[in-house]
């Protein structure tokens, strides 16, 4: 199990390149720490997510909550971003790992004694599964954004949307 998690944390997840622009709209991709406060910089500063992985984690959780996976081919991915082991905060990463293990069609006894190769293979499977949930999450977010174009520009709405997803599920 430790080896499996280790291998999972070593991976670089990807997301569909079709969501790259959308993701950039929600994520601070420029350095605003030394900004003088131009309109563009203020807009940048006001984005909901500070990093790409935060946006990815959010999309993943949206997909997981809705139990909705999107279509994703790893060869049609957007730019590479941070390795999972560098994601913060750790408790949330652990929760996502737990969720993925729960949702995977993989009994726990099959992950008891894994060789290095097996652990790597299964770790990648978990990441691929996570990527599909993230793609599903992005799909739902984009649909909302088409309905209300400025919706995600208000950071408060990312919380509202999460609650909406929960309600839809119910």
């Amino acid at each position: 199990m430790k080896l499996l998690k280790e291998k999972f944390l070593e991976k670089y997840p990807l997301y569909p390149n079709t969501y790259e622009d959308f993701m950039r709209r929600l994520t601070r991709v420029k350095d605003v720490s030394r900004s003088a406060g131009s309109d563009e910089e203020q807009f940048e500063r006001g984005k909901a997510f500070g990093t790409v992985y935060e946006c990815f984690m959010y999309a993943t959780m949206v997909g997981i909550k809705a139990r909705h996976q999107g279509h994703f081919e790893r060869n049609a991915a957007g730019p590479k971003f941070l390795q999972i082991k560098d994601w913060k905060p750790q408790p949330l990463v652990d929760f996502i790992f737990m969720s993925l293990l729960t949702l995977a069609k993989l009994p726990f006894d099959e992950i008891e004694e894994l060789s290095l190769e097996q652990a790597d293979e299964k770790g990648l499977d978990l990441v691929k599964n996570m990527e599909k949930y993230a793609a599903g999450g992005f799909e739902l977010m984009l649909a909302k954004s088409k309905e209300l174009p400025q919706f995600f520009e208000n950071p408060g709405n990312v919380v509202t949307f999460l609650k909406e997803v929960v309600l839809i599920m119910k």
Partner: protein
Amino acid sequence: MRLLNITLCNFLCYYDNNKLEFSDGLNLVLGANGYGKSKLYDAIQWIFKDGITDDKPRAGGIPANTVRKTSDMRPEIRHTLANERALAEAEIGSKVLCEVCIEIESGHQDESYRFVRRLSVTKTGANDFKADSESLLEGYRKAVNHFKPVSNPVELLAQLIPGDIQRYVWFQGERGINSLIDTSSRDSLKQVVNQLSDVEKWDRFIEVAQAAYTTADNELKQALKTDTTRKQKTETLQHQQLDVQTKLTVVETKMDEAKQNRDGASEKLDGIISQLTSATKIQALEKERQHRERELGQVRARIDDLKLGFAKRLFTDNWLIMGAEDLVDEFEEKYDAYSSFALAREAKHQATLAQSEQEQTRLPKGIPDGVHVKDMLQKQHCLVCNRPALKGTSEYIAIESLLVQNEPKKTKLLPLPSIELDLREMYRHGIKMREKATRANDEIAAAYVEQKQLEAQKLLLQEELERIIGETETETVNSGVVANGTAGSVVLSIESAKRELERYSGLVERYSQESAALTETLKTVKEEFGKLTQGSDVDPKLLEKRKMLSDLRELTELTKKAQYKKLISHLEDTANQHYSSINKRTGAVYGQIRFVYEAGGYIPEIQDDAGTPMQNLNTSQVSSFKLAIIMAIVTANRNRGVAKNYPLITDAPTSDFDAVKTRGFLAEAAKAFGQSIVIIKDFLDEDPNEEGRYVVDSEKLALVKADVEAQGKKLKVYQLVIPPGQSNQNRKNLSVQITRLAV
């Protein structure tokens, strides 16, 4: 005179060609702030005065809101008369023509004219422009179906509307109204009355009567001199009278000067004292504004933090997993299944082990332990029967077979599954996270409540700030004290004005005493003259003549006074009609205008029903008071027909009025003037669908139409519009359009 139309081409905010057709009756142009209202008024001014209103004071003591001529503009800014968008779009090296064209009907024999003023601007670089040093005016007279150039367009314009009329019928905003009528000065009304009437001719009658009296008086004195017994005395008295009269004239002149100076000093002191109050108030308002701005900044920052915090707390407070608590249950199920599986496997394993042990303890009787069997094989000697058992012999093989039988069965031992601990740890973590997730709803609700409270606080602070800024602006406009003026300098000015007042008051006192003494002496001299005529042989007709001319002089003076009073009274009545029409529908107490005689002149004031001057008038009351007087100046002299013959053109005259009062003014303007062109920001509401855009309040406009039609006049309405996708913040892409509205 009537304005038929105006065309603006690349003039200020008007890009390309924009045309307005004017009609008789009320022409209303509606535009929100920043939509080009004043620029439209400027276009008319540019034609007639070759200048636009400069809202800033300039070097050389030129006050703000003075019309600045094109040629007086600094060369580096003269090009700003041309439209910024047209300049931005022009190729480098090309010219942009800024042009205003007006067509006018003179009112005499159906004559009409066209005037065009142009300024050419050359684009010399991406952001560099060079405008001609002065604008060019062309005039044309309409002949049947075409226009013929005229040689003297400037003189022609001046003839079409004389300057003394133009200033009362064309004015811009509150400041324009203030500059026309100064309610604190006696001269303001005097000038108006002189302009309104022929009252000045009575001054000439008085002069003639005075001259005739002086002649008759001299004649009488001359006759007295022929009487030798009285000659000496007459001459002495004559000299004495001349001497006293001269001294009296000098003293009275000095006294008049001193009085004027004293009044000036008094007004100055009053002004400064009111400025001190205003400066103190403005300073307090300024402090309050800074304080509120700081507070508002903090609240805004907190709201921004809170909004951003919503997204941050998804991660820091684990709100992200809110609604995913069921995953922990699902994990638990899977974990249970695995635990059951692991337990079953462990049980099986234990059973296998037990069986193996059992098999090992069931070795045949008399068979030694394996260790002894191995020893026997090594020594090739059976220790049980104490006989040799050499390798390869049947004995050796028999011993060896014991060894195989004696070896315990090897059962593979499975290790206890190590992931049990990991799964347990993972489950514990899941439980902990679930607890946090269940708290998220309350935390989010609390954050929303805080945000709502802050938004409400922000709104209150914004309203408060608007109030403070409005009050500061009103105080600044009314007092003339600039917002950053210091009270200290005002105090110094008060001391100096007080000293000045004391000095002139002292002089007035001194000259009054001197004048009184000289008047007394003169009276005595005149009495002496009277005594001389008694019993003399002077022709009684001369005495009669002097008496009659003295009466005539007095009569002319009284007549002038009566005439003046009648004019003032007529002006007062007319002003009150306008004042009442403007205010009556507001429901507020507005009093009535009275021209009060005070120290040699009339001063207008508003009195209540008991005839007491109303105090603490608000800016709206003061504006309607002045506006009514200005309208009265124009309409009181019906013989001159100013209101009938010249259009009223005004920009933002009602900026201090509410909608009801504005309607009152518009109805009154429509009633009084043959043609009026009124540019205002009223009757527009913010478009709820688009920020920074305005829609017309049709209901209110329908009421205006009814008011205008009730006066037998027509209403035409235009709206100044900024096309979609443009903003008055970006003037390089701005083209204000003039749209005719159907009312």
